[in-house]
């Protein structure tokens, strides 16, 4: 058993007899009255997504998840392979559970993988990941002096993002994995 304080991205909870991994959680304070937590969660058996809102302090059946630091290796079909750096064991995670985070993965990135009953069910990426710029078109006409014009660039894992015009091919940059946007030069 646990409480709503334990609800956060990556934990597994038992709801109406089924196991769900929380993909997003949000506090709601109606302003007048008690606080609530809204959890968006995915059924581990069938992938169905549902939303449920709990009053803060309510009991929630939280299932033990073992969080391990792992390094991303490669993609094989629809599955993603990671290595547990503490024992060098390799695991594979369903693409469906990796979700949108997949586009940020590149070999060697350290992630936190949640394991339920040995099965990887959640992934947490670093807030910022370093990439090498492999394609960056030169600055074009109309670039303003304000430095606020951007261009589309391609990173070494194939990710396309917009970056300031001063970024050149071969540079290393940091990308914010919460927004998917350029953060700074590395």
């Amino acid at each position, binding site marked *: 058993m646990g409480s709503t304080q334990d609800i956060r991205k990556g934990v597994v909870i038992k709801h109406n007899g089924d196991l769900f991994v929380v993909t997003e959680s949000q506090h709601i304070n109606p*302003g007048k009255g008690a606080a609530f937590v809204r959890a968006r969660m995915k059924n581990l058996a069938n992938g169905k997504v549902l939303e449920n*809102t709990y009053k803060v302090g309510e009991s929630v059946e939280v299932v033990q998840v073992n969080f391990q630091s792992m390094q991303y290796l490669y993609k094989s079909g629809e599955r993603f392979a990671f290595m547990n750096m503490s024992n060098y064991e390799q695991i594979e995670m369903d693409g469906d559970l990796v979700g949108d985070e997949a586009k940020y993965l590149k070999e060697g990135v350290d992630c936190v993988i949640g394991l339920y009953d040995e099965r990887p069910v959640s992934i947490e990426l670093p807030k910022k990941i370093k990439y090498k710029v492999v394609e960056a078109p030169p600055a074009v006409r109309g670039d303003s002096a304000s430095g606020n014009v951007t261009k589309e660039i391609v990173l070494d894992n194939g990710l396309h993002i917009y970056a300031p015009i001063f970024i050149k091919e071969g540079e290393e940059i940091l990308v914010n994995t919460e927004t998917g946007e350029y953060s700074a030069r590395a």
Partner: protein
Amino acid sequence: MSNWQELKNNPRLKEIFDTRVKIVRLIREYFWGQGFAEVNTPAAVTCADQEPHLSPIPVVFHDERGADSQFFLQTSPEYAMKKLLAAGYEKIFQICSVWRDFEESGHTHNTEFTMIEWYRSPGELGAIMDDIEKLFKFTAEKLDKKIVEYSGKKVDIFGDWERASVRELWQKYVGVNFDDYLTKDKLRGLTKKLGYQVGASDDFNDLFYKIFLNKIEAHLGVERPTIVYNYPIQMAALARPCPADPRYAERFELYIGGLELANAFGELTDSEAQATRFAAEATERARLSKNAIPIDKELVNALKCVPTAAGIALGVDRMVMLFTGAKNINEAMFNTVKDQLNF
């Protein structure tokens, strides 16, 4: 919003912040145009909001000899603005920072955020509904953004707004006549029947929101803005009872795209009734182990000089989120709590 470097180099964030600057200006222009006086009241007050679930942040002032006095950062400028109504001001607004401790920072909340409140006295709740609809339409027109999008929902600000009572919404989305569930026991039974947890300490508010947040909220303001009005009297806070049906209170909330943006009251101006509510709230704060806040006797006294009044609090940062498509409140503000702590 993150730090100044991201703001400088990310045109999307820059656009959001530029629009924020415009929105604040437009709000002022709108209210000045309507003959409202812009007022300032202190951010630090000795008698903060007594609302049982709010946590005002305590701050200590020291005089020149070092003697200390207990103040709190305001959670809303409401009490002070009502005192200005008592002083004879009839139409006032204020844009200011407010603070709510023990709340999440992220998504739609930040410990410190910007509120606009406005009051009319004499005033009726219907006039406030008209004000907010006109304010949003004015802003939408000036920004040339008549359709806004929030979490994938497109909402037409310029069309007719929906005004729905709590009773109508419960009928529509829960399939019950809310008049039959106006006691804690009745509502408790319904909450259980619908499959939600019911705790021994759950009060009427909690039970209401367990159903409302799960069954109703997501439907609100989906295609057009929705004003939800006439809340049960147990949830009146500072609102007066509806003259035609005192089981309900003159309170409304505005939802656009499922996002709650504003809370308004036909203000309780009965001084004695206010004193009784404050005492009950102080008791409830003690039961919930919240910090004790002195009862604002000056407000109780001031209400004797307020004929009728209506007023509203609107979250400016959420309004910015709505008009800019910001993904969360962090993108709509500069140097949020998260930005400062993660720096």
